[in-house]
């Protein structure tokens, strides 16, 4: 029976984490700081647009690339906000969340044996998706540089057949982001080695200490970038599953080929709602961002007081916290904390085996929950 499942798939997924997740899901009255999505519901005017589109009878397929109206709105939004120009006809593809965009990007560019640079700690799907596409992930450990990529780290990672690098900023799980100046430095070495940059900027709108700079806005970078973004995090639209990929028309055409056979198109209701998000959602985004920022400050202050070390995240809604002092491995820490204090966090080992002395705390949770959860963590540690 075991032979039925492909070798590639059998090798995926660290099982310890899955068990821990099941443990959390099976428990009641847990305060969860383990959630990778906003605690806000989608702003009403966006939900209403989705409902209205159903009332109007919009229930069909859309074009493979997505509703033209949505691509046009995205194109205008990127131009107005960042001065970034992508043609709605050929350079934008609507995807099922940024996740699908990532999968398509990798499958569109990888030949067997191609290597992809992946900074760690990083989002869990980069490695497995690279392998599924026939590539070889080359992990770059950013631990010693404050979880930040440096030109040197990139240069050291480059080997023969290295095709691309995946950037993710603000980063899940560390919240680390880069200023324009830092990005310029990274860009130089990326272009020098003729790498393609897959830039996952899903948390871009949630950057707190400086303006977010999309990678393709750097001079000379656009032709060498696949820019991935979506509505999930900033607009609190995770369940709608709508994101987008922007790149040269050759790359978008290649990604669209795969997309048309696998997905066909993103659900029309979600696309219609996303159109509304771009029309009237900015105010809500800014409100939510201010709230996350306040929570960030509060959480950091409390962690400090408790004696848990954590670098200041500059974006997203995560804090990557060292639990080295407790002498517990991350999974142990998470399990014990869950059992003793009913607080759920994600063990660092989920983001790379080298991060077994960290946990990820999500502050996408109400202030009330955060206060209570941090008090419980304090009790747990003592």
């Amino acid at each position: 029976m075991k032979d039925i499942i492909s070798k590639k798939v059998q090798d995926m997924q660290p099982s310890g984490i899955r068990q821990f997740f099941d443990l959390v899901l099976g428990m009641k009255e847990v305060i969860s700081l383990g959630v990778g999505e906003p605690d806000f519901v989608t702003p009403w005017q966006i939900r209403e647009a989705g409902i209205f589109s159903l009332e109007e009878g919009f229930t069909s397929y859309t074009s493979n690339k997505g509703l033209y109206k949505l691509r046009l709105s995205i194109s205008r939004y990127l131009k107005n906000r960042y001065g970034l120009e992508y043609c709605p006809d050929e350079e934008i593809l609507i995807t099922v969340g940024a996740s699908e965009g990532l999968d398509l990007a990798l499958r569109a560019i990888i030949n067997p044996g191609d290597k992809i640079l992946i900074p760690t700690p990083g989002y869990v799907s980069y490695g497995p998706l690279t392998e599924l596409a026939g590539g070889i992930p080359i992990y770059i450990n950013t631990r010693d540089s404050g979880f930040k990529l440096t030109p040197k780290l990139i240069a050291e990672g480059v080997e023969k057949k290295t095709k691309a690098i995946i950037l993710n900023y603000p980063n899940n799980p560390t919240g680390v982001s880069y200023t324009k100046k830092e990005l310029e430095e990274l860009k130089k070495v990326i272009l020098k080695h003729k790498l393609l940059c897959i830039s996952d900027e899903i948390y871009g709108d949630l950057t707190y200490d400086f303006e977010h700079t999309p990678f393709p806005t750097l001079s000379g970078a656009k032709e060498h970038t696949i820019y991935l973004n979506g509505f999930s995090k900033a607009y609190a639209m995770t369940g709608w599953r709508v994101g987008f990929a922007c790149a040269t028309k050759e790359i978008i055409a290649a990604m669209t080929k795969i997309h048309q056979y696998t997905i066909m198109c993103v659900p029309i209701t979600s696309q219609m709602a996303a159109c509304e998000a771009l029309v009237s959602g900015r105010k809500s985004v800014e409100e939510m961002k201010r709230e996350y920022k306040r929570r960030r400050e509060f959480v950091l202050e409390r962690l400090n007081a408790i004696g848990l070390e954590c670098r200041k995240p500059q974006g997203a809604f995560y804090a990557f916290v060292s639990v080295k002092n407790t002498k517990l491995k991350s999974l142990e820490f998470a399990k014990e904390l869950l059992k003793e204090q009913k607080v759920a966090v994600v063990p660092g080992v989920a983001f790379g085996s080298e991060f077994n002395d960290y946990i990820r705390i999500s502050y996408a949770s109400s202030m009330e929950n955060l206060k209570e959860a941090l008090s419980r963590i304090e009790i747990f540690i003592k």
Partner: protein
Amino acid sequence: MDEILEVLEKDARATPEEIAKMLKKKTQGIKEAIKKYEKDGVILKYKAVINKELIKDADASVRALIEVNITPQKDVGFDKIAERIYSFPEVASCYLISGTYDLLLIVEGKDLHTVARFVAEKLAPLENVKGTTTHFLLKKYKEDGVILKHREENKRIAISY
């Protein structure tokens, strides 16, 4: 709006220490700012939002919107008569408005009779009151930005990447 107010409007019980942490400012500064807001009348009071429909013996379980037509007085216009009216404890809110009538009152009482008696015996007989129209509230859905519903259950799954 100042973020201190944004925080307090959501949770009046947030302490200056907590707000200081959230906004990365000194506690003392937050305390002073709040004091100033209180002094200037920007912050008027701190109160719990209570869903009275769920309380059986509430003194104010019945609410009515009452439109009042009044004759303005020389020199003081509507203010004097408005003051006479809003001074009644039964009057929870009182607004001067444009349109077909002058004052809009929100009156609270423990039952229909109490409110009806207030209108018949206290309000209507006033010299400058020309007429009243009473609308009893049947159901409150949302008040001052708060949706009056039991806490919703958590719809997110408890853990995810």
